């Protein structure tokens, strides 16, 4: 039983392993699909007769997005019980898609499949049967159980849940979408690529999969703002930054433009109490502007690098600019008017919150 507790305790790690392997599918599939739709310019699926090339491009993109589901599940399972879990989880998630269980179905299939295979691998067999286990028993029984649970038990309710969640998100109007944007922005700007940020990012990927591109744009802005904003701050507030910080600032701007939130980390590490509130504020404001202006982004990534697959390009750029400027001004303001004290805090926090566990083999 303690094994199960351990697996569940590390749920986040397993889910993130899955998400990390899914990202290339979302990015490549999403962008190729978006490019085909954009080149057509009518906001619909390219027709195979009139636009054969664009239609084929669309199909390539759609294949990428479809495959993201089984790969997500497969690598959630892989994180729990390695190679043997790949097939049961992928097949289970694919079965889930017939009910529209999508992203959540994949997470569930991945966890269930991983746990089932974990216990199947534990079964003690006589030596003659040992080679039969990994080739026949584990894949067949594992897949039957995992895919069976999705097919007969969980597929339908999870599918219903996903559909209703999607239609609810799609129907979000001015007020509520701005609140969502503020929350997502604050999460993205909070730990700059850390766990909280990745939860918001995973949510963004769900929205790519479900085709809710306004929310994707909010996240794409929120991802870019912290790095660009802190970099911008080093340009605006010349006398509150050291020479090294100014160099780091330039690199941060570049990282922000290509959608890497981590560019702000060196600043946040040095002065978390002033930087993190500013990056949260900047991302939230940028996200809210994107939401209000109704920009849409078709790719599961952030920054100006996705601009080619954004509709409402000016709104998108404007949202990033407003967010970054807000972030930069907040940093410069805090740095100028609140001094000292923080150094002491930093020393303290350095010794306290470190998460280390030893496993002396």
């Amino acid at each position, binding site marked *: 039983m303690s094994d199960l507790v351990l697996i569940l305790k*590390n749920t986040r*790690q*397993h889910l*993130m*392993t899955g*998400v*990390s392997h899914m*990202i*290339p599918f979302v990015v490549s599939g999403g962008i190729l699909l978006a490019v085909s739709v954009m080149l057509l310019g009518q906001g619909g699926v390219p027709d195979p007769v009139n636009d054969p090339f664009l239609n084929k491009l669309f199909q390539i993109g759609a294949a990428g997005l479809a495959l993201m589901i089984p790969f997500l599940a497969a690598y959630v399972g*892989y*994180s729990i019980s390695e190679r043997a879990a790949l097939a049961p989880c992928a097949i289970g998630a694919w079965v889930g898609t017939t009910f529209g269980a999508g992203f959540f179905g994949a997470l569930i299939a991945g966890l269930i499949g991983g746990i089932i295979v974990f216990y199947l691998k534990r079964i003690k067999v006589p030596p003659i049967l040992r080679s039969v286990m990994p080739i026949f028993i584990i894949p067949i029984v594992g897949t039957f159980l995992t895919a069976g649970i999705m097919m007969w038990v969980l597929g339908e309710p999870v599918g219903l849940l996903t559909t209703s969640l999607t239609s609810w998100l799609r129907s979000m109007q001015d007020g509520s979408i701005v609140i969502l944007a503020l929350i997502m922005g604050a999460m993205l700007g909070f*730990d700059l*690529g*850390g*766990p909280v940020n*990745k939860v918001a*990012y995973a949510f963004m990927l769900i929205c790519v999969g479900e085709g809710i591109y306004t929310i994707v744009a909010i996240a794409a802005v929120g991802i870019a703002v912290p790095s660009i904003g802190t970099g911008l701050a080093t340009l605006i507030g010349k006398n509150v930054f050291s020479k090294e910080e100014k160099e780091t600032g330039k690199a941060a701007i570049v*990282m922000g433009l290509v959608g*890497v939130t*981590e*560019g702000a*980390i060196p600043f946040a*590490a040095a002065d978390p109490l002033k930087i993190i509130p500013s990056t949260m504020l900047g991302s939230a404001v940028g996200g809210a502007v994107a939401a209000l202006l109704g920009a849409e982004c078709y790719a599961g990534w952030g920054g100006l690098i996705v601009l080619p697959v954004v509709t409402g390009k000016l709104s998108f750029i404007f949202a990033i600019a407003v967010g970054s400027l807000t972030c930069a001004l907040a940093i410069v303001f805090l740095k100028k008017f609140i001094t000292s004290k923080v150094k002491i805090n930093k020393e303290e926090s*350095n*010794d306290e919150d*470190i*998460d*280390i*566990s*030893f*496993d*002396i*083999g």
Partner: protein
Amino acid sequence: MVNIIAVTACPSGVAHTYMAAESLEKAAKEKGWQCKVETQGSIGIENELTAEDVANADFIILTNDIGIKNQERFKNKPIARIAISDAVKKADLILKKIEENLNK
């Protein structure tokens, strides 16, 4: 001389993985320790640890944000599991804790 090895990996595999590797290497250098870091980023495994590296290591540092590939290599070795953000920001502290552990 203390010889440590580490494997770093993060969900997106583009930034934290490498920042953590760099900061661990730097902190080890300051201490005069030998340190080799394998990165498991989105490109794949780079600077891979050899069986010899593992055999010679006094301590192994693994990040715990996502599953580390080929973990079975480290069987029976002392392992410290850390959050990747701590590796980026507080590598020196991590090494200090490991030092305390080694001196026990």
